[in-house]
Every structure is written in structure tokens, then in C-alpha cells.
């Protein structure tokens, strides 16, 4: 049924058929004799379309409804799922970095711009010793943020990242949430796909101790 419907709308483009959505725009035939051409000239000359155009732009000038965004001072709001410079998040509980060094982001990165090196620390836990994103190569596809199991790497809204040094495009420290921001409790959580919904902790089932 559904396919038939689509079929009807996409294949029945014959304007002569009844019940068709397509119709001819009403264009008069071109005049063939000189008298007809002369009449067309007179009609076009005195129809006053030129004055309609003049009035429209004058109306806009008087109305003064300016649509300009004065960019460096004003900025357009961007959506929470906008994919600009990455942010590395910290844990709310301990201020430690959320990244567990699983390397999924490095693996999935299609432009090969993420480089991650890990080692085992003194207590045999995995520790990220080197993490860099070459933003000069990054195409901001968002796969790294999507694949991250810990919501440790997300995209932020910072899109003004012009620089005259390529090295500036790889700074991990710039992407990591600063500690004073954590203390002030102002780390912004990613609100897009895969993020934790509000009141998530009320629905968490604790692992029974019997295990």
C-alpha cells in the first residue's frame, strides 16, 4: 500500500493525467504577429512592475528590520550536538580524567588524527601517558565522541580555532577541563546522543553485594 502510494507520486509525472500533482504554470503563448508583439511591449511597459520592485526595497529600508549578526560581538546560538573542538572531561567525583585509555577513539578515527599512548602505572592500572588530537587533520566527524564508552571525549562548541602555529592544533591540555573549573562545578556535560539523561542516578541498580 505504502509502496504503491510512493510509486504513484514519484512516477506519475504526466501533467495531462487527472489526479496528478504536476500542472503547467500558466504561461501565455508567445505572440507570433507584429501586432501581438507590440501589444506585449505596451503591456510590459505600463504594467508597473518596476515600481513594485522600487516599493519593495524602499519598504524594507523604512522598516529597518536588519538581519545582520555583528559576528565578533554577537554570536548565533549553536546546538548542543554541534561538533567543534573536542573536550576531555573529568570525573565529577574525583576530578581525575575520565579517559580510561581503551583506545577506541584512536581506532575509529577515520582521518588518523588521534594518537594515544598508555602504560601501566604503579598500581597496575592503565594510565594515559600521551594523548593528542591533530586538529589540523580532524574532520570533526564525531566518531570518537560516539564510540567513547565513558563520555570522556566529547565535542564542544568552541569553533574559533584559527592559529598561525600547527602545534596549537594538538594541545591536549587545552581540551582537558581545567581543575579550577571542576572545583567551581562548571564543567558542561554533553547533551547530545549517548549522554546521560537527567535523573539517571535514580534509575541505577546497584550491584548486589551477594555477588
Amino acid at each position: 500500500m505504502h509502496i504503491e502510494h510512493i510509486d504513484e507520486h514519484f512516477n506519475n509525472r504526466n501533467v495531462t493525467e487527472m489526479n496528478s500533482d504536476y500542472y503547467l504554470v500558466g504561461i501565455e503563448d508567445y505572440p507570433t504577429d507584429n501586432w501581438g508583439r507590440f501589444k506585449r511591449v505596451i503591456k510590459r511597459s505600463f504594467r508597473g512592475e518596476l515600481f513594485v520592485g522600487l516599493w519593495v526595497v524602499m519598504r524594507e529600508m523604512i522598516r529597518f528590520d536588519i538581519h545582520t549578526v555583528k559576528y565578533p560581538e554577537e554570536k548565533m546560538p549553536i546546538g548542543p550536538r554541534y561538533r567543534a573542538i573536542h573536550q576531555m572531561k573529568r570525573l565529577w567525583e574525583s576530578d581525575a580524567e575520565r579517559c580510561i585509555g581503551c583506545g577506541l577513539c584512536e581506532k575509529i578515527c577515520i582521518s588518523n588524527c588521534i594518537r594515544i599512548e598508555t602504560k601501566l602505572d604503579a598500581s597496575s592500572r592503565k594510565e594515559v601517558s600521551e594523548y593528542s588530537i591533530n586538529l589540523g587533520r580532524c574532520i570533526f566527524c564525531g566518531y570518537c565522541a560516539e564510540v567513547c564508552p565513558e563520555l570522556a571525549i566529547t565535542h564542544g562548541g568552541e569553533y574559533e580555532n584559527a592559529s598561525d602555529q600547527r602545534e596549537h592544533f594538538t594541545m591536549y591540555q587545552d581540551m582537558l577541563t581545567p581543575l579550577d573549573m571542576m572545583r567551581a562545578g562548571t564543567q558542561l556535560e554533553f547533551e547530545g546522543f549517548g549522554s546521560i539523561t537527567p535523573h539517571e542516578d535514580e534509575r541505577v541498580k546497584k550491584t548486589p553485594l551477594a555477588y
Partner: protein
Amino acid sequence: MEMAYLIETVIKIVVILLIFSALAGIGTYFERKVLAFMQRRLGPMNVGPFGLLQVAADGVKLFTKEDIVPTNVVARVFKIAPVITAATAFMAAAAIPFLPSFTLFGYEVHPIVADVNIGILYILGIMGVGLYGPLLAGMASANKFSLLSAARGAAVFISYEVITGLSILAPIMMVGSLSLIDFNAYQAGGITSWILWSQPVAFVLFWIAAFAETGRTPFHLIANDHEIIDGFGTEYSGMRWGLFFIGEYANMFFISFVISIIFLGGYGDGSFLGALGLLGKVAFFFFFFLWTRAAWPDVRPDQLMWLCWKVLMPIAVLNILITAIVMM
């Protein structure tokens, strides 16, 4: 020749040159602002209050830019072409009475450089010479777009010279003089004695032709950006290109003065109010040039020629005939 007359004339020339070069710059500012407002934009805003100093910034940029003369151009012609455009525009101003005569420090000043008795003929002739600017620039540029623009320029200028001349002939027959001051005196009786009321057809024809003569938007074919880049100006840079620009805008101001004086009574009886009135009319005509640029599309070159030879010229000739019959 008296020394005082000579000094007075030189001072007038310098004042006109300075004022209209500056006005050409400010004209670009107004053009950008008016176009922006009509398209719901703000226009220049950052240099100075409301972007007013944008003109100065542009001027500095033009003057300090490298002056490039490309390899294959005919250098001598290439260099002199922009000077022709600017010079003819300002030469035409010599026969235009910009204001009524006034007394300054007990000395009567006539704000016209040379009140020649063939003023209109002189202005039309000099504007005809102005054709050589785009024509020589386009032919010397070694660029096919420039060449196209030169050919279009020659066709448009020569065709619309006819309309300008014929349309203005009927008012000349009524006034019986070619001096713009006589035209002004003929209409000194106030708004009812304007030639606009007795020669409305000539007014409209002259106005249409003015758009072609200055190369403004409905007939902006000589430098039609989307077809032939900047036309004859494509290969120019720096102040040479700036001279074309100054010439174009000065021409717009001067043709606005000419329309206002011939058809709309000029400065009337010569009072202060009359002088203000003349400036107001000129401002309106200049604004109309910008207004149409925001509102109207360009016509095709063949339509332009069609309009000139098959519509406007017959109407102009008929207008002269009817005027002659009525005057007899």
C-alpha cells in the same frame, strides 16, 4: 584677461575638483549604506562612527596599492584611459551652475566655471568624449572581458547619445538657449514653470538615457560583474582603478545636477531656499541611482539596443515634432 578673473577661475576649479572628488568617495559610502539597508544589512560599521571613515580607509588602500601594468597591455594607452574618464567627468562640470550667485566678502561669486552660451552642447560633447575612457581601457587591456566591455561601452554610449541629444532638443527649442543659466532663468517662476510639466516625455527619456550614460544598474552592461568580471576595469589596480571610480561617481553627481537644472527648475529664483532646493533635487536623483541598483535587474545588451533604437528614439523624435507643432 584680468588677473582677478584668472585667480577666481582657478579657485573655482580647485574647489569643484576637491568637493566632487570627496563627494565621489562619500557617494560610495552612501551607496553601500543604502544598498545594505534595502537588503536588510548594516553596511560598513566598523571604521569610525557608523562606518563613516570607511571612505578614508578605502582611499588609503587605493593610494598605497601596488600599481600593476600587466605584461601584454599597450602600456601608454592603458595608463591614460582612467585619466580620460576622470578628466572628462570633471571637465563637463565647467558649464554647470552648482549654486545661485552669492556675495562673499563684498565680491559677487558665480558658482560656474565658464558660463559658455553653448553649455548643454559642451556638456553632452564632453560626456561623449568620456566614452574613450572605457573604450581605450578595454582595448588596451589584452583581456577578452575588457574587450567585450569596450565594445559594449561604445555601442551603449553612442546609442544613448542620440537619446540624450534628441530628448533635450525639445526643451532647448522652448527656452531658445543652450546655457544652463538661461534654462534656470526660464523656470524661475516657481514649481509651476518647471519644464518637467511641459516636457514630461523628454524628462523621462533623458532620465533613462542618464542611466546609460553613467552606466548604472538597469544598463550596467559595461562592467557587468556576473558576465564580464569588471569589464574594462578588470586589469586595473590601485589608483588607476580609483580614477575610474571617481569618474563614475562624479558623473552621477553631474548628471543629477543637469537633470535638476534642465527639467526641475534648478535653483529657482536664486534665493537660499532655491539653492537648498537644487541640492535636494540632486540628492534625490543620486539616491534614485542607488535605489534602482537595489531594485532592478540588468537588461541584456540586445534589449538595451532594442530599447534605444526602436522605442526611445522614435518617441524622442515624435516629442520634438509635437513640440514644434505646438510652438508654431
